[in-house]
């Protein structure tokens, strides 16, 4: 009977393709939009990944890493003096402008780190060496900077090349790997002191103090001790999760709460859902209506209602599986392309396909239920009335 159900489904090519198309579209819209949303949210915490440190200490009202209030220079020493803290170093993080040879400007994410310890330096240097950052006017740039800042040059930006940040010369001594920033600009590392020189007077500030715990003390304990001793806010830097004391989590929730981003993506997801539900349910219902006499004949001939319901469920879930599979494949192709180009941001957490699959199955269940309901109202005696 299952085979029969599938043959009936595949036999009606037009409706079969329509069902697949509807569920494909729903899957694609949901997965694609949510993955771009997740990618965008992930970009908001790139600085936390690029400037790796177990603890980020910021001014007490700060909620997210891209918008910090100034700390006092003495705060570095105050944090350092906490007994649970092994080390503490200043960090500057700010958006600056690079002037291109043709006179146009490009924004960059400038990071200034302690020149002695180089704490917060990029983790993977591709060309050059990290310690050259201590040389005069030295900067280390990421691969995106090579792409963005090469415009108008005879050859791509490379070691020894110079450019100007706010009219002050910067010389490339290293090229590194880095996660993309939320603002889309490349990351440029320099020393803390030089970062302040590159920055206009009004914007000069200590953005954060990064720190690490002494051995035997957990990151959370050290963070708590810093807060207690200094009155500043000490976030741990572990990655997005349940923990509100994590800077990644706090940053992402700040964007979710304070920007229109979730709503604009959510709208498309809801449209995807509605399109999926409308097309799938409407088409499947029409399919059941078309086959009502045949399904009724099966009922008269002694097929139990349970069996008939199973047939409809198998039909609905079959198109669900296929539509979801194709939709996921298309989203993956899109994601692969986006990752290749680096634009737009995409990130597909494992829960996304799983949840989308659940949504598609729910849509299919609804469609099947409509059909089952219609069929249940069909008296087997009706088959004699053509």
């Amino acid at each position, binding site marked *: 009977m299952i085979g*029969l159900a599938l043959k009936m489904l595949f036999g009606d090519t037009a409706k079969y393709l329509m069902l697949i198309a509807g569920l494909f579209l729903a899957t694609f819209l949901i997965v694609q939009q949510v993955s771009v949303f997740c990618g965008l949210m992930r970009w908001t915490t790139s600085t936390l990944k690029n400037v790796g440190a177990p603890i980020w200490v910021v001014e007490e009202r700060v909620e997210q890493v891209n918008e910090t209030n100034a700390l006092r220079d003495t705060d570095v020493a105050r944090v350092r003096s906490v007994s649970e803290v092994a080390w503490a170093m200043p960090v500057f993080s700010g958006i600056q402008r690079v002037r291109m040879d043709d006179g146009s400007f490009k924004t960059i994410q400038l990071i200034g780190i302690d020149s002695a310890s180089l704490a917060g330096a990029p983790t993977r240097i591709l060309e050059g060496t990290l310690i050259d950052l201590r040389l005069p006017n030295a900067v280390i740039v990421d691969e995106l900077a090579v792409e963005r800042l090469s415009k108008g040059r005879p050859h791509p930006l490379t070691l020894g090349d110079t450019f100007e940040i706010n009219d002050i010369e910067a010389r490339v001594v290293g090229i590194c790997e880095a996660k993309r920033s939320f603002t889309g600009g490349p990351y440029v590392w320099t020393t803390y002191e030089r970062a302040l020189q590159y920055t206009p007077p009004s914007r000069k500030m200590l953005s954060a103090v990064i720190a690490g715990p002494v051995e035997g003390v957990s990151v959370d304990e050290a963070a708590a001790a810093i807060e207690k001793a200094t009155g500043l806010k000490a976030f741990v830097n572990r990655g997005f999760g349940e923990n509100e004391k994590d800077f990644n989590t706090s940053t992402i929730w700040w964007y979710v709460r304070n920007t229109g981003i979730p709503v604009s993506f959510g709208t498309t997801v809801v449209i995807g859902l509605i399109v999926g539900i409308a097309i799938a349910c409407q088409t499947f219902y029409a399919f059941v209506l078309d086959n009502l006499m045949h399904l009724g*004949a099966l009922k008269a*001939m002694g097929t139990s209602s349970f069996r008939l319901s199973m047939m409809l469920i198998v039909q609905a879930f079959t198109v669900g599986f296929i539509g979801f599979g194709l939709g996921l494949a298309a989203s993956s192709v899109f994601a692969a392309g986006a990752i290749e180009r680096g634009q737009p941001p995409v990130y597909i957490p494992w829960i996304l396909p799983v949840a989308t699959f659940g949504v598609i199955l729910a849509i299919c269940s609804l469609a099947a239920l409509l059909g089952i309901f219609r069929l249940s109202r069909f*008296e087997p005696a009706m*088959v004699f009335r053509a």
Partner: protein
Amino acid sequence: MATDSQPATNGIAVDVRGVNKSFGSGESRLHVLKDVSLQARTGEILMLVGPSGCGKTTLLSAIAGTMGVDSGEIDVLGNPLHRMRGGALTRFRAKNIGFIFQQFNLIPTITCAENVSVPLLIRGVSASAAKKKAREVLDAVGMGDRWKDRPGKLSGGQQQRIAIARALVHEPPLVICDEPTAALDAKNGEIVLDLFRQVARAAGRAVIIVTHDNRIFSYADRIARMDDGCIVDVHRTDPRETAHFEHEVPH
């Protein structure tokens, strides 16, 4: 054909006693079956005839177990249908009844052999075994070479032969037909009726045919005449009278 647990029925396949059925309620209440009693025997073709709206289809549905009645008793092959409900009735139909519909009701998206397999699939026979049996029965109705075709490719008469094969494939003791020739021309009607006669006799099963079509009356062993919800007359047709489809049978 007698199936395992069938009680003895003394050649009475269907026994309808004092059945009443109404539709609607209040002002619009329609009393469709009025104290109907009727018997059908194994090995015979019983035709149910009468003017449109007199209740033939309703009575047939009651006998087939696809519709309940308000009062009276219906024994089919020893099963008291009036006391059976839901699942039991469904299983009863699957096992005992072959259905032939006016509009054939073949599933257009599957092949003839697959259509014919359906009653076996319903009874849980494997698809391959069902198909094998279906092809045998298709051979028997002269449609063996069309098993791979979809029903839409066949003429009306050919489709009804497929439907007959489907009604017989699970060897049901009772075959129920509502207007089986109404959609057929004279020639196809004759072919189909010849087939009916063979299957009814050969297998010792009962066949009940509802019809308007007076051209086919001569194929009946007995004819029950209905009018306004009552059986007004049951008579045996003359066995010496050689029936021919094209000739009108006087009545």
